[in-house]
């Protein structure tokens, strides 16, 4: 079959994971292993006057206490996209003379037991001189706001803009109608089921070994070795075993990853750090956190003339590894979606606050852009008296208009957006809504319906991926791919792709990942890129191994050979050679590494897109909502494993719904984190999900990659935030509401005049 297998093959990793055989970082133990813990700042902003570690060193079991003075020789955690230019915001492994958010690391304590390490941390005496904190965008950009980075002109570190401001200004001035909204996208915590952990080991010969849950070992190693540890790359090995959720957050280097390595080298023993849930809430990079002013200009018939968006993006206290890129390079160019918009302007201000650094979170900028556009277009429809489906149908690009350059640097290549919209309406029983609404009203409930047409840029960043194969004497094929499953099921999906290409059973294949000693290159997993790039690498590697096998078989069998169904067959006779036979005759000769690159080695993003339709029932007496129906149609190109895709959709919707109605990181004015545990930070439970998610695809294969896939990991989240909120706004007869739409807010709005 040309495009993978298309079968809903059960996940090969499930037997292992469901029977407790998964191996997560904290499962690792080594003889003589020590335990590390980080002492964190209780203040959002303070100068450190002094640190006294003497009492900590007296605590039984405590082996070492490190402070900034000990690690000053290491580089700071780099921001890879420092849009602030000359103004740097270096995050050292431990705070030097200042702490800048609650949770900023101040000291790292190593002890024989976890408890001793904690007791040691408690015995450290830090004298702080509290400084005024700015804990919100508004506080940070207020005139005379205290500055977090004194060398910067203000807390607004950069302005980034794309589009055509002049054309936008002109269109806004003469448009028949302009819809304006102020939109807040709440700060959320990734809340991966597995919290972060790191095991550091050092060997004088081999150098450092870090075991941690990453989203790709190779890229992490590059920065960790050269920039932070300042050693050659081959002196650092990174291993990632099973990962219990990342959502972008586990792509990044955190101070503990270098601290365990430092301690392991100093102390000559392995050192493990395992975060607690409170560490996670305080220090895992947060997501979203932005406020926007948006305007949509329309002509008298509801055709879009221009879109203007100005966003203040909260970066947290430090520019995180990709932090500044999220609302700009990653998500800023998709503003406006796949609508026909003659003029777009997107201006982003990057603002620092005394809060946890903000970085990529499922969708990384693309949900945020889609959310703004989808809120605007429904508000506009309501204002000018068009149906929310009509206004979209009127403005969506048609297949005949593709390829289409969006004016922000992206060219949409393929898709049939109006058809997807139409199909979604059918799947959602669009026509049956008025009857359902009347039935709800009879029960005292208000039914609302919301739509979202999202488009994503997937696999946008890189241009290459790698796969490396080994064939054992028994014919077993082990292939390493340079991406990293965080639970998505890569072992299964890549296995299917490889099995289909080679014509061998899935059982003969093992997909491995996550060890720089096995493969030191790879782009990792992020931005829904794995199947487009990793899948391409698997195919390339399969073709290369068939070529090697054919050459070997031709030499052995003396003549032309054809490959098929796992066998090399001599053209003139019945003689065949299997992978096992070839591998045992020529040990290692079938093995090799392949590199897949996009055409002309240029970025080749795909554009997954789709239409979500949500219905919510609001109880005006309590403000409680229930999502009663949820339907969506996506264009994901080719599906390698439809069941895995649907799983990604369900999880994505859960996270989008969570952000829309429940999840919220809250700091008080002094920068204290008020939602530092699951007792205060709500995440969706099964009973808050829609009773059914009706999911279909209407696919146009992507021309950018050999599998024709588009990527589906982030899509569910992108569509769910706006469709759910739009449905709630509809239930409120058009009253705008910001996320999270909590019962209290909805009760107030439902009962306000």
């Amino acid at each position, binding site marked *: 079959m040309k495009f993978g297998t298309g079968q809903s093959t059960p996940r090969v990793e499930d037997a292992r994971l469901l029977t407790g055989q998964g191996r997560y970082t904290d499962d690792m133990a080594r003889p003589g292993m020590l335990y590390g813990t980080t002492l964190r700042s209780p203040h959002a902003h303070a100068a450190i006057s002094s640190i006294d570690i003497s009492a900590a060193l007296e605590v039984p079991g405590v082996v070492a206490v490190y402070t900034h003075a000990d690690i000053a020789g290491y580089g700071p955690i780099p921001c890879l996209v420092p849009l602030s230019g000359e103004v740097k915001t270096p995050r050292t492994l431990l705070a030097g003379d200042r702490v800048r958010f609650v949770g900023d690391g101040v000291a790292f304590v190593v002890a024989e037991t976890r408890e001793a390490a904690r007791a040691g941390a408690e015995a450290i005496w830090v004298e702080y001189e509290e400084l005024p904190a700015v804990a919100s965008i508004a506080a940070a950009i207020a005139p005379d706001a205290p500055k977090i980075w004194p060398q910067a002109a203000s807390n607004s570190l950069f302005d980034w803009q794309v589009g055509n401001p002049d054309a936008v200004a002109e269109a806004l001035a003469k448009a028949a109608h302009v819809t304006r909204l102020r939109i807040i996208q709440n700060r959320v915590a990734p809340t991966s089921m597995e919290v972060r952990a790191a095991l550091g080991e050092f060997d004088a010969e081999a150098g450092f070994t870090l075991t941690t849950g990453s989203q790709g070992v190779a890229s992490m190693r590059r920065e960790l070795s050269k920039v932070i540890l300042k050693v050659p790359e081959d002196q650092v090995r990174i291993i990632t075993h099973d990962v219990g959720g990342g959502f972008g957050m586990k792509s990044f280097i955190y101070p503990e990853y270098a601290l365990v390595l430092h301690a392991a080298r100093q102390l000559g023993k392995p050192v493990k750090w395992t975060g607690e849930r409170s560490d996670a809430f305080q220090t895992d990079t947060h997501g979203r956190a932005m406020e926007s002013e948006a305007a949509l200009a329309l002509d008298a018939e509801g055709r879009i003339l221009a879109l203007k968006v100005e966003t203040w993006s909260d970066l947290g206290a430090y520019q995180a590894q990709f932090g500044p890129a999220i609302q700009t390079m990653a998500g800023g160019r998709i503003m406006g979606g796949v609508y026909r918009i003659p003029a777009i302007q997107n201006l982003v201000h990057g603002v620092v606050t005394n809060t946890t650094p903000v970085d990529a979170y499922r969708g990384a900028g693309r949900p945020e852009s889609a959310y703004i556009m989808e809120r605007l277009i429904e508000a506009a429809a309501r204002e000018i008296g068009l149906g929310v489906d009509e206004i979209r149908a009127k403005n969506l690009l048609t297949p005949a208009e593709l390829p289409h350059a969006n004016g922000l640097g992206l060219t949409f290549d393929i898709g049939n957006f109006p058809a997807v919209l139409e199909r979604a309406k059918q799947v959602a029983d669009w026509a049956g809504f008025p009857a359902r609404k009347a039935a709800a009203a009879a029960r005292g409930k208000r039914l609302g319906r919301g739509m979202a047409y999202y488009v994503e840029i997937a696999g946008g960043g890189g241009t290459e991926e790698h796969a490396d194969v080994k064939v054992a004497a028994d014919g077993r094929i082990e292939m390493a791919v340079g991406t990293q499953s965080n639970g998505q099921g890569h072992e299964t999906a890549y296995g299917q792709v490889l099995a289909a290409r080679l014509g061998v059973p899935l059982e003969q294949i093992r997909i491995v990942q996550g060890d720089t000693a096995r493969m030191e290159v790879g782009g990792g997993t992020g931005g829904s890129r794995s199947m487009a790039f990793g899948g391409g690498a698997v195919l390339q590697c399969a073709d290369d191994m068939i070529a090697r096998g054919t050459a070997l078989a031709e030499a052995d069998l003396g003549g032309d050979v054809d490959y098929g169904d796992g066998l090399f067959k001599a053209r003139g006779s019945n003689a065949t050679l299997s992978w096992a036979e070839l591998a045992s005759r020529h040990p290692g000769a079938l093995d090799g590494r392949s590199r897949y690159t996009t055409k002309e080695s240029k970025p080749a993003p795909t554009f997954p897109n789709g239409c979500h339709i949500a219905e919510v029932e609001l109880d005006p007496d309590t403000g409680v909502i229930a999502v009663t129906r949820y339907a969506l149609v996506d264009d994901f190109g080719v599906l390698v494993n439809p069941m895995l895709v649907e799983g990604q959709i369900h999880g994505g919707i859960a996270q989008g719904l969570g952000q829309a109605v429940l999840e919220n990181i809250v700091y008080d004015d002094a920068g204290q984190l008020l939602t530092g545990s699951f007792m205060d930070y709500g995440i969706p439970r099964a009973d808050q999900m829609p009773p059914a998610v009706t999911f279909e695809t209407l696919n146009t294969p992507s021309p950018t990659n050999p599998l024709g896939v588009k990527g589906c990991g982030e899509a569910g989240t992108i569509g769910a935030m706006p469709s759910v909120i739009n449905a709630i706004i509809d239930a409120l007869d058009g009253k705008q509401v910001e996320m999270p739409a*909590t019962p209290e807010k909805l009760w107030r709005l439902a009962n306000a005049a």
Partner: protein
Amino acid sequence: MRDFALVRPASLADAAAAFSGGGEAAYLAGGHTLIPAMKSRLRMPDALVDLSGLGLSGITRDGNRLWIGAMTRHADVATGATAIPGLAALASGIGDAQVRNRGTLGGSVANNDPAADYPAACLALDALIETDRGSHTADDFFQGMFTTALADGEIITRIGFSIPARSAYAKFRHPASRYAVVGVYVADHGGQWRVAVTGAGPGVFRWAEAEAAIAAGGALPAMPADDLNSDIHAGPDYRAHLCGVMLKQALACLA
């Protein structure tokens, strides 16, 4: 969690003796409040005195009282308190299955979390809280946030609930923890009404105006917002409003 000694007494007397054996001690019931507090080092007892070997669990009826042992798990109350369906329903709505399989009646009542469910049932069902030293009426027992009439080291052994003609509990769940933002327990003791409110204020309390109004068949009162709790999830006016909604829901369950 800091190191501690685990003591497993076989009698109430031994338990009390172990408690006062020096150092800071704490009774361990289901551990679903105590252990998290120890993990976050809010509590660091030197000794845990396990109450599970004292025969304190089980449900028995004695005349018009339903006696439930302090160590009875929420899950067992949910299935076993058939004489008071409102109480069984309350127990089935505490936390999640894991919490209900570990958490105990005595632990919840001794802890007196202002958002806990059982204290509302105790007040509305005119409970007697029996201990190794005597007994307390519910009206005297709950003294505001995390404060009770228990003396240091006093052990709740069982709680006797008056079996009402009808009773019901309605709870508005906290979006994250699922404790009560507001919970209202309504009990009809043969024309005598008791209404207890949890979650809304600094501690569980009886809503006298509601009791009088129901008894008189009059219009239901509005809860004044004045002294109610306020946090990021619910302001006082919303809580006050929810008291009315939960009261109505509970009354509707009775019918």
